[in-house]
């Protein structure tokens, strides 16, 4: 039998239910693999070894009790619905609050902070039986594309440890790719789930804005932030999404939109499961500067979708080139307001000073890292008197144009297919101290956040260096079901997502 850590989330679920494995065995296998590989990966910031072990034992007792009581089939089926994740270990990006675990957001300014509550997205997974095994590394306050901005050190890409895993959810992506956990949570403000998923060869979803509660998420750009999931297969990610999604009284931006009925069974159309589906390929995403092997893999994947029955059309999102400047005004502006709360008064460390003002200046000046300071300053500038209209006001208007591009395209096609990032994973340190070069890594992922549409990244090949290439699908608001359907059909005929790094 292959190691337990090779099981996908759905495989683990079946094996646990059939009594073939125990949650203790599965959780221990994950913890042992983490212990063995963490020195070379650094995917985690905090581990919950003991808590996870006792949660696993509780889950096993629940399974045993059900079997002992000669429980009827219906009771077991009931468990399936109420606790679909019973006994399954997961990792959570360290920007989501989990009670009794530290939450640093990769920053010194939250060093030692223990949130007194649990984020709704995590709570729903725990209520479904999932076990939080640890918190994963992230760029500080999710600001970055490589985890190099984490105060606590970079995460290494499991496919080549001299390279970045992408970011900011790089710890979660590396943990899933290296089989440290079957799945993990991430967040996506400008591509932070999709880009690391692509760099690490895993499947990652950024849901529609307003679909998953952000209660308990360390806020970065509130009109953009989304909580998403990373796993090895589309089915695994879809399951986590269905459990997390939906209205939450604690997050006023969550919407009352019925969850999609996701049909993974192609039924009669087994050979052409995508028949009748229109896929748009935006010319603006195949531009100069894109790595040739990335373009080749993505185009080959689009051909596969066509062979599965989809109708492929060229489409245009003419304002794509403005997404980057719009994002780097709006996100820092929102961040400058959201991060005003870190003042050394109510939580987090304090640099003591004579006056309260000096406490603010010193604590923030010394505890925020460089990228966070840059974005706070950029946002403060864009919102300051005399510059507001030219920067923030203009960016909000151009955001409307970007949103309209998507609305127009979704009148012509059901789903957009495009590369996730222009290149595969880059070497650690490649962008040195050049923030603008790092920002350019996000050109293909930012538009979905600005328009609020869902995006799903999954592996579609490897480059000559053996690094994974990712493709993303984007859909209309609340149409995650279409993304799952298309990507799942692809994963039925491809095996990139089962490739395992040699680490």
């Amino acid at each position, binding site marked *: 039998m292959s190691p337990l850590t090779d099981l996908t989330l759905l495989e683990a679920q079946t094996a646990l239910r059939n009594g073939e494995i125990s949650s203790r065995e599965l959780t221990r296998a994950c913890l042992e693999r983490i212990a063995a590989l963490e020195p070379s990966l650094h995917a985690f910031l905090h581990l919950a070894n003991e808590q996870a072990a006792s949660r696993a034992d509780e889950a096993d007792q629940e399974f045993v009790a059900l079997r002992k009581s000669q429980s009827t089939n219906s009771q077991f089926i009931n468990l399936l619905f109420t606790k679909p994740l019973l006994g399954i270990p997961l990792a959570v990006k360290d920007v989501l609050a989990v009670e009794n675990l530290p939450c640093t957001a990769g920053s010194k300014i939250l060093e*030692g*902070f*223990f949130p*007194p*509550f649990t984020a709704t997205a995590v709570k729903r997974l725990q209520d479904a039986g999932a076990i939080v095994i640890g918190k994963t590394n992230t760029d500080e306050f999710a600001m970055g594309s490589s985890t190099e901005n984490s105060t606590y050190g970079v995460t290494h890409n499991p496919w080549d440890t001299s390279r970045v895993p992408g970011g900011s959810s790089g710890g979660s992506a590396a943990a899933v790719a290296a089989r440290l956990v079957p799945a993990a949570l991430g967040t996506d403000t400008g591509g932070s789930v999709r880009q690391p998923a692509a760099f690490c060869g895993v499947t990652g979803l950024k849901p529609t*804005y*307003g679909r998953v509660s952000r209660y308990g998420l360390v806020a970065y750009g509130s*009109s953009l932030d989304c909580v998403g999931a990373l796993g090895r297969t589309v089915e695994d990610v879809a399951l986590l999404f269905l459990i997390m999604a939906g*209205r939450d*009284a604690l997050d*006023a*931006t*969550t*919407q*009352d939109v019925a969850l999609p009925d996701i049909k993974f069974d192609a039924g009669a159309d087994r050979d052409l499961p995508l028949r009748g589906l229109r896929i748009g390929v935006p010319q603006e995403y195949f531009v100069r500067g894109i790595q040739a092997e990335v373009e080749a893999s993505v185009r080959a994947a689009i051909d596969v979708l066509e062979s599965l029955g989809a109708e492929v059309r060229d489409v245009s999102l003419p304002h794509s*080139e*403005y997404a980057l*400047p719009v994002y*780097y*005004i709006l996100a820092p502006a929102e961040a*400058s307001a959201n991060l*005003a709360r870190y003042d050394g*008064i*109510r*939580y*987090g*460390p304090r640099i003591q*000073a*004579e*006056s*309260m*003002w000096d*406490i603010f*200046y010193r604590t*923030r*000046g*010394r505890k925020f890292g460089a990228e966070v*300071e*840059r974005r706070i*300053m*950029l946002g*403060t*500038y864009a919102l*300051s008197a005399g510059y507001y209209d*030219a*920067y923030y*006001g*203009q960016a*909000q*208007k*151009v*955001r*409307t*144009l970007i*949103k309209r591009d998507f609305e127009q395209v979704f009148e012509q096609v059901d789903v957009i297919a495009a590369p996730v990032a222009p290149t595969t994973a880059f070497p650690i340190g490649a962008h040195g*101290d050049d*923030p*603008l070069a790092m*920002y350019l890594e996000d050109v293909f992922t930012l538009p979905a956040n600005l*328009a609020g549409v869902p995006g799903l990244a999954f592996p579609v090949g490897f480059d000559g260096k053996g690094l994974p290439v990712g493709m993303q699908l984007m859909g209309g608001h609340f149409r995650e079901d279409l993304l799952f359907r298309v990507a799942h059909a692809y994963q039925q005929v491809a095996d990139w997502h089962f490739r395992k790094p040699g680490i």
Partner: protein
Amino acid sequence: MPLTLQEVEHIATLARLELSAEEKARYRQQLSAILDYIAKLQELDTSDIPATASLLAVESHLRPDEPRPGLEVDVLLKNAPQVEQNQFKIPPVFE
């Protein structure tokens, strides 16, 4: 147009960030480069375009304004850097 040192200092003050001379010089150069790039937005005529402030198609949900249990004081103070008599302690703010 590059930012002046005075502008960088003004922004840092607004943002309540104490910066070293070296940081000011570095951020001045980096932020100027980013602002140059962002200036691309001025190419577009947006005089007839409304601003998008929120992506939500419907109004945010409001809940009834009713009392409900919150976090206990000791739980809230557990993360505080300095506490006295069940309150956050700070230096005097009045002369």
